[in-house]
């Protein structure tokens, strides 16, 4: 029973990281009818931006001047600004120009954008960054051989607390974020407009919604969500690689498809389902860790074949 409980907590934790990336997919898909394949990369970009900002603020002595939590909030804000900017760049460069062409074009161009993000991270983060950031936190110290090796994510979340406490905070932050998103989508004019565009774009135009403005706001908000998810992923993994975005993107996209691409709550359910399957396969099947991702993706394939609309379905996947 103890094992079951422990696994369930890990699953929820992993599910949180998938969920936030999946929500990025579903927000963007909702307003653009396009799968933005670089969501995972934007999230990882966010965690690297936070790492970079941390290094800079460390050497500037910021942590000595302001209280710790102020600095951390500031770092997350910096990550959010960077990710929102990348969200906007993604929209302007790899989606908007292809609005009137085949639906395959933005798919390819967002994959290309993901590669760009990966390569930028690979170029920017040299080993020297790592030695500084890990000096602060002995727990995550790693030996670095080349510029492309994993970077240690600084302990910004409860640095003095236990691992369990840190994990609970990650779950709590995700829950708060989901709650805020729920309020935003249902109680504000912009949020309602986002839903309206997702349900009926032509009618949204006719209703007088400034559709292009709402789309831009969606990309900004999606970027901020992805930055926070990057922060949580970093705090959870402790070790980030520049190409982690591909894996998180794949998992986030799968979660969104399983839940129902057009539905934000589908992303939560899908993310949790995938995480539970992965964690329990690793936990209960001998040497299951090797197969956990395979089982998860098999489930995705089963959904695509038998229930392409996802758990909370709307007609959606046909548009991909």
């Amino acid at each position, binding site marked *: 029973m103890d094992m079951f409980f422990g696994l369930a907590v890990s699953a929820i934790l992993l599910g949180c990281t998938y969920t936030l990336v999946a929500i990025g997919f579903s927000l963007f898909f909702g307003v653009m009818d396009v799968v933005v394949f670089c969501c995972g990369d934007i999230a990882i970009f966010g965690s690297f931006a936070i790492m970079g900002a941390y290094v800079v603020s460390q050497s500037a002595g910021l942590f000595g001047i302001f209280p710790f939590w102020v600095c951390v909030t500031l770092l997350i804000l910096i990550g959010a600004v960077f990710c929102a900017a990348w969200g906007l760049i993604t929209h302007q460069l790899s989606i908007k120009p292809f609005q009137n062409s085949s639906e395959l074009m933005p798919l390819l161009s967002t994959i290309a954008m993901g590669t760009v993000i990966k390569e930028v991270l690979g170029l920017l983060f040299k080993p020297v960054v790592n030695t500084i950031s890990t000096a602060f936190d002995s727990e995550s110290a790693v030996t670095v051989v080349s510029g492309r090796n994993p970077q240690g994510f600084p302990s910004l979340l409860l640095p003095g607390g236990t691992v369990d406490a840190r994990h609970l905070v990650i779950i709590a932050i995700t829950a708060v974020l989901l709650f805020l998103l729920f309020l935003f989508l249902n109680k504000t*004019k912009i949020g*309602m*407009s986002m*839903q*309206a565009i997702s*349900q*009926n774009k*032509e*009618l*949204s*135009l*006719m*209703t*007088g*919604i*400034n*559709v292009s403005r709402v789309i831009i706001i969606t990309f900004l908000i999606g970027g901020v969500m992805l930055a926070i998810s990057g922060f949580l992923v970093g705090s959870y993994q402790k070790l980030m690689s520049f190409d982690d975005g591909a894996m998180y993107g794949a998992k986030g996209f799968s979660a969104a498809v399983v839940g129902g691409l057009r539905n934000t709550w589908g992303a939560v359910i899908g993310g949790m389902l995938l995480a539970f399957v992965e964690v329990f396969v690793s936990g209960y099947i001998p040497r299951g860790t090797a197969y956990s991702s395979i089982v998860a993706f098999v489930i995705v394939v089963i959904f695509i074949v038998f229930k392409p609309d996802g758990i909370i379905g*709307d007609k959606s996947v046909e548009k991909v």
Partner: protein
Amino acid sequence: MSGTVVNTLEIDGLDTSYGRIPMLRGVSLNVPGGQVCCVLGANGAGKTTLAKAILNIVKADNGTMKLEGECMDSWPTHKRVKSGIAISAAAVGTFHKMTVEDNLKMGAYYIDDSLLNERLEEIYQSFPVLRERLRQKAGTLSGGERTMLAIARAVVNKPKLLILDEPSLGLAPIMVEEVFEIIRRLRATQISILLVEQNAAKALSVASSGYVIQKGAIVFSGTADELSRSEFVENPVM
């Protein structure tokens, strides 16, 4: 100006195309203030394209459009809606996962929050069937109720010009009757209406003037009387 009827909408020489295929060719028309003006034409004649071009949802290649004398060629769609043009197009559907009330609130996008409830109350009085369905998802409404919702959503804003795109589309005869009763009531409120219809007899029963559109061009225009006597309308195949 007094004595003459001011046109709510003036269109002059409107051309649109879909890709390289021309859709509308040199369409000019006026919607007189406070009256119902109809545009009659067969399927594919360009009626809906015209309706969408007025809102800049379909882009115009040439031509000018004026709303109450003010040139609006450079206005994006949302500005045209904000300035008082509303469209109800039954074929476009609803926000199907939102409640009826939220659909109406989306229609009231530019209404001040303090006036919203009062305005919604007026709508429920004109469309009692919607009051019964307030909390229901719009996707669960019947065809007739959806048309009512589409019209109600368009008039929430108190538009200067209301475009009704095929309001009788796909409705049972009794519902068509009801929809035209609503149009008569709206006409009495002095709102200018551009009624785009395939059902010429019904449209002419409420319109005071109108146009016939064929293959993207206006081929006849006149008063309702002139229209009902014209060869274009007598032809039952149109």
